[in-house]
């Protein structure tokens, strides 16, 4: 309730009906496009950052190899950001994900390297351990009622410590090839050697087709239920632009090594979790709890159960991030996962999640994570030192949230 006095709807109805400004179709459409852009400000920010760094790096940023690197280097942060934004929407926070990633990475080293278990068994066991960590933290948060900030702050120390215990003050490496593929692998050359990998292009094309079909179906559904839809021209423009971006992305990957395995994992996660958040009862309960916990409870929503499963899920995703990171370095070390929690939290907030809870999207968190990734990558290419990178990222987080707050105040929202 940042704005002290937005006029209520009834006020606007009571007194405003006779002075409705004359609007023609054109201004109507323009307003729609502008408000849409305002709502998707974060997407535009990503484009702006990409364009900026393409210039500053003389185009190196958009080279196929670098685009591929961008995905692989940021994959684990994006995996964490998915879980983190869900936790934040419910009004919690998780500070322990970096330590959990390190702990699980260390465990996977014991399984896959020291015990010599098959790679897939090591992966499954590690994910189970991650979920169990989530059970532990979820228990304290949901059923004992200790604030998530405290429980996960403790968890940050506990699991960093346990990671060191498991590692026994040494690094564990090197991992089996299949395991390493989680972080380094590419899916390509299935159809033989080509200049442009046909599989990658095919997947890109398929993604575009699925996107278009899904968008058109949603639009048809809304029309069928006589809801408002955006102007057709704008709808098509948006689809074309997004399809072009996917096409370019697929082209870049195809002309390098193909689709990174990390990207496949990420793609599946984004798809599944977007559906969970938008279309399942569980996801809608998360939003309801974040928006008003009391009201959710008195509507029969089992808030404790939702909180519990949120943290189990976060533990699972932290484990997955730990595996991807370990696989990428081919090494389970004591420093793994350092600061991951901060990047994941930043991604969620840059992506439009609200500190008070109730607001946020998976897509937003991914874009927020990509903005951080492009900043990291772009500044590294330019040879900017780590100290300035840190400062710039901090500033971007602050400005992104400030812009969001300003935007909401201007539109009179809450």
């Amino acid at each position, binding site marked *: 309730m940042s704005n002290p006095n937005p*006029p209520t709807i009834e006020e606007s109805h*009571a007194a*405003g009906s006779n002075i409705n400004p004359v609007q023609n179709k054109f201004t109507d459409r323009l307003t729609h496009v502008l408000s849409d852009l305002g709502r998707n400000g974060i997407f535009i920010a990503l484009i702006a950052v990409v364009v900026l760094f393409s210039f500053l790096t003389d185009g190196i940023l958009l080279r196929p190899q670098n685009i591929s690197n961008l995905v692989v280097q940021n994959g684990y942060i994006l995996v964490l950001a998915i879980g983190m934004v869900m936790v934040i929407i419910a009004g919690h926070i998780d500070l322990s994900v970096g330590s959990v990633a390190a702990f699980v990475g260390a465990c996977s080293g014991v399984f896959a390297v020291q015990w010599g278990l098959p790679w897939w068994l090591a992966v499954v066991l590690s994910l189970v351990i991650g979920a169990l960590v989530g059970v532990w933290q979820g228990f304290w948060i949901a059923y004992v009622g200790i604030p998530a900030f405290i429980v996960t702050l403790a968890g940050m120390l506990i699991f960093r410590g346990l990671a060191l215990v498991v590692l026994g003050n040494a690094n564990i490496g090197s991992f089996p090839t299949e395991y390493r593929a989680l972080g380094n692998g590419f899916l390509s050359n299935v159809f033989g050697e080509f200049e442009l990998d046909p599989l990658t292009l095919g997947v890109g094309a398929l993604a575009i087709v699925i996107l278009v079909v899904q968008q058109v179906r949603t639009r048809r559904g809304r029309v069928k239920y006589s809801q408002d839809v955006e102007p057709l021209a704008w709808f098509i423009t948006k689809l074309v632009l997004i399809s072009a971006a996917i096409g370019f992305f697929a082209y870049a990957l195809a002309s390098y090594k193909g689709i990174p395995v990390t990207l496949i994992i990420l793609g599946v996660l984004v798809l599944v979790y977007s559906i969970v958040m938008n279309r399942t009862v569980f996801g809608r309960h998360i939003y309801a709890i974040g*928006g008003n916990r009391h009201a959710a409870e008195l509507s029969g929503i*089992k808030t404790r159960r939702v909180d519990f499963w949120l943290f189990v899920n976060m533990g699972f995703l932290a484990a997955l991030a730990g595996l991807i990171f370990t696989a990428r370095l081919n090494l389970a070390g004591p420093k793994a996962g350092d600061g991951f929690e901060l990047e994941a939290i930043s991604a969620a907030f840059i992506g439009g999640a609200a500190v008070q809870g*109730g*607001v946020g999207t998976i897509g937003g968190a991914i874009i927020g994570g990509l903005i951080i990734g492009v900043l990291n990558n772009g500044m590294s290419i330019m040879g900017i030192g780590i100290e300035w990178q840190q400062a710039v990222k901090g500033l971007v987080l602050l400005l992104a949230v400030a812009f969001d707050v300003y935007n909401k105040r201007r539109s009179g*929202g*809450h």
Partner: protein
Amino acid sequence: MTNHILEMRGITKTFPGVKALANVNLGVERGEVHAICGENGAGKSTLMKVLSGVYPHGTYDGAIVFEGEEVEFKDLTDSEAKGIVIIHQELALSPYLSIAENIFLNNEQKGAGGLIDWNKTNFEASKLLARVGLKENPTTKIREIGVGKQQLVEIAKALSKRVKLLILDEPTAALNDEDSDHLLDLILHLKGQGITSIIISHKLNEIKKVADTVTVIRDGKTIETIAKQDVTEDRIIKDMVGRDLEHRYPDHTPHLGEELLRVEDWTAHHPQDTSRVVVDNVNLNVRAGEIVGIAGLMGAGRTEFAMSLFGHSYGSRISGKVFLRGKEIKTRTVAEAIQNGIAYATEDRKTYGLNLIEDIKRNISMASLKKLEKYGLVHDNEEYAVANEYRKSMNIKAPSVLVKTGKLSGGNQQKVVLSKWIYADPDVLILDEPTRGIDVGAKYEIYTIINKLAAAGKGIIVISSELPELLGICDRVYALSEGRITGELPVEEATPESMLKLMTMEKPR
């Protein structure tokens, strides 16, 4: 001709695309109590925000003349410096600070060296407390005193600013009858000391009690200003709604069916102080198609009874039996209560009823998402259609169901809450203060909805602080005092006097 302390002339305030106030005139005489009435959204609050500088000079048209000179306030501090103090419905006190600290917040009593002089602070505070008739130690924390007393602290705070014109926005909305009476007496007492008051209120009986003049606002326009001797409730209501309200309550002929709900020996203790009985051996029943009222003073345990019944949402050591259609049911969790056909619409919409940052649609579906589930996914177009249906049938005034509920007026928010529970399709609906903070026109609509639900065979329990309301809409009324049912009367036999007697019946000690 008259001695006006305040004159607002031709005030017009426009929000983007909306005219909230259109050429409003208001004249307040020195030393009077001036009431402003109007439906929610009529523009009362906007007018007061213009007056107090919340909307600064330049953002509205028209002139404000205070004590004979034209004033141009830039903010609240400006208007307070002139002696205009506004007390909002939602009190602006800090719960963890003491009474004295709150009174002198941003007006600290400083001693030598610019440090706060605590002796002076507490001494001055106790003098102010004596003026408002509040017997509390000034060092008591705000959260340790009740809402009624907090209201008095707000007035003491206003007095500390040498207030000349005191504006009270719905001052008794959250108070019980006793505290309300005390507050109204205080307003009259302050009038004796020369302080002019503007009181914004929905409650016509209290307006009649204290006001010398009544101005009615509707749709952002002044309808008329009525002098005390000409004030009648019917005239005010007619002005407010713009039409005659033949009856304040819609006609209702009950068609009673079988017994739906029966509660036996329901007892609940205080959640922290588990030895204190809050709900004491309550027995009651509701038949299909029946509207049953629960009357009780503030603190009688009405809400506590309802919430302990609804999924043990309140209290500790709860015991007793609940029967639905003669079959015993459990209501240990809210989900279980809903599943067994009981719904409870809270008295505090904003804190316990709505997700204010979400839209109408998602609020309506919140308790019944399972119904909209298809192949494990929520069917969102269906959800939209359902919500739209309720928007029309319940007459929720909003351009679409995608409007956030935080932007709706109280009456429309209440309709959203009711829609949520009607969609959940319970057998018994407990409505706690269903018309609190709602204007007369919307109240009538809510009553009509309640009647329709009863006609559809639901059992309705209405909890209300307003006796006329209970007697106007219920078929049968229970009186609750100190957590016990002290009486039960069919509405034909109940009078305000007989009810009040039951409601104040004390426990034999």
